[in-house]
């Protein structure tokens, strides 16, 4: 009986949580013009997907999102894990002070950086380029924090014996630290990818011509241009949501680990 009640309540809650997305997909699969009829689609069609992807440029937006999110996530994870090695395992001038300076910026709401970042990007001539969309976000402080905490636990003896064998510091980082810290490096990569995939405000400001739009920006512009095209808009939303959902479902463990670690230590 208790078990039945449990299944009943979690199932009900799961339906409520998943409903918007199921409904979005169903609407996206409906024939155009039937979106406003409150019923299940009579015939499933990929018409809307074809139309937004190939006529309204969403295949291009999708590609842009992928380029921006993949390169940002890769490079910022790389930078963070390089710096984390030094902070976790080396002693150097002003170490504590620098670490504190980096971490303190986590307290500052992102909106504060937007204006000056925009001015800098403008000055560099990077408006409407991938550079402008990617480079300002390559210093990921939260990632640095997570990876540093993890690398501190690697025993020093491991590094010492590698040094005795004549390994360079870079080789130690790449061959020992990164593989050992892989779970947290993967977490940071995923969190970064997710952040950049849905980073709306910054891309809205920097991407100014249609061929540079990312999916959320394309969706915002689409919204103002085609107010009544429900089925098309839901198809466009699905294009944005499906890849990140799949990524999440396959790598769920890393997402959850990262959040738990961050909150427990932070």
């Amino acid at each position, binding site marked *: 009986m208790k078990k039945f009640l449990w299944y009943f309540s979690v199932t009900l809650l799961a339906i409520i949580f998943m409903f*918007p997305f199921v409904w979005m997909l169903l609407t996206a699969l409906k024939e155009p013009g039937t979106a406003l009829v409150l019923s299940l689609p009579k015939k499933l069609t990929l018409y809307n997907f074809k139309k937004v992807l190939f006529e309204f440029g969403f295949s291009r937006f999708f590609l842009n999102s992928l380029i921006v999110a993949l390169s940002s996530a890769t490079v910022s994870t790389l930078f963070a894990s390089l710096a984390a090695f030094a902070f976790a395992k080396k002693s150097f001038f002003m170490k504590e002070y620098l670490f504190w300076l980096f971490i303190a910026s986590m307290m500052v709401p992102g909106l504060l950086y937007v204006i000056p970042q925009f001015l800098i990007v403008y000055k560099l001539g990077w408006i409407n380029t991938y550079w402008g969309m990617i480079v300002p976000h390559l210093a990921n402080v939260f990632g640095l924090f997570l990876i540093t905490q993890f690398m501190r636990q690697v025993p020093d003896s491991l590094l010492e014996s590698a040094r005795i064998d004549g390994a360079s510091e870079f080789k130690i980082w790449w061959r020992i630290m990164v593989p050992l810290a892989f779970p947290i490096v993967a977490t940071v990569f995923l969190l970064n990818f997710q952040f950049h995939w849905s980073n709306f405000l910054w891309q809205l400001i920097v991407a100014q011509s249609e061929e540079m739009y990312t999916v959320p920006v394309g969706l915002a512009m689409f919204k103002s241009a085609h107010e009544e095209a429900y089925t098309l808009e839901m198809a466009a939303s699905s294009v944005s949501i499906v890849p990140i959902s799949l990524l999440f479902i396959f790598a769920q463990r890393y997402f959850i680990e990262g959040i738990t670690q961050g909150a427990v230590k932070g």
Partner: protein
Amino acid sequence: MKKGVRDNINAYSFILPFAFIYMVFLFLPFIYSIYLSFNQVTDFSDVFGGLSFVGLKNYLFLFRDKEFWWALVVTLYYALIIIPLNIVVSLLLAILLRKRYRLNSMYRTFFFLPFVLDAFVVGIVWTFIYAGRYGLLVNILKPLIGGIYETGFLGNAKTVMPSVALAMTLKGAGFGMILYIAALDGIPKEVYEAAELDGATGLKKLWYITLPLIQPVTTFMVIIGIIGALSAFAEFYAMTGGGPIVYKWGTPLGMTKVTGLYLFNHFSNLRLGLAAATSFVLLVLALGLSITYSKIQRKR
């Protein structure tokens, strides 16, 4: 000495890429926006050079601006709905998922998945659910809601804020759930056993044992809730655009024109000095409220 210098160079070469980006795109902007907040853009063709120093004028403008005060009021209203709602739903999910029945991890995926999705896109989906006339909810609830049938839940000044808060709670509660599950797992079984010996039952255990022990997570949730409300932007941009208009304080004001939208408005009209001053006031508010809240918690 020589070895020390070499070690330092070596260590710094690992930090360099990160530190360089940090200095140029985070530290410099922070300092620059302090400077910007005391200036006004006078020459739009040269947003860097075309500045004139105006002292505290931007801050004084904010202090006297009805719209800014209104933005603070509606943001507070939003925070007062979403923070408690989010905590209650997250905790409920966490308590439910502590029972390790079969399919437990599948349900956890369902609850957590919306959190990783984009607030703007989720907002768009909800605008269709909340829409008037053709929207899904108004048709289901038609006999109960009167005039909302025509305006939709986002077009009515009374329902708009709770509706946004509900949509964003359903999107974000999975995050709190994960934190609460971790915290609940950290409570030793003996604590409950001891309480049971003293005759404590379900709800009493929750109120007197569980809640105090998971207080750090709740504090954390309140703090990120405050910061989240003060910087909420994409969800309101997607769902309401600041509307519907209400007449208060003698002027038309946007019922959901929260601080994030207010700031964006200055920004998109190139009032950059004002926008920077707004960001600083919001930063000070976020820090002040967070510190005050955690101090009050610690005293208890």
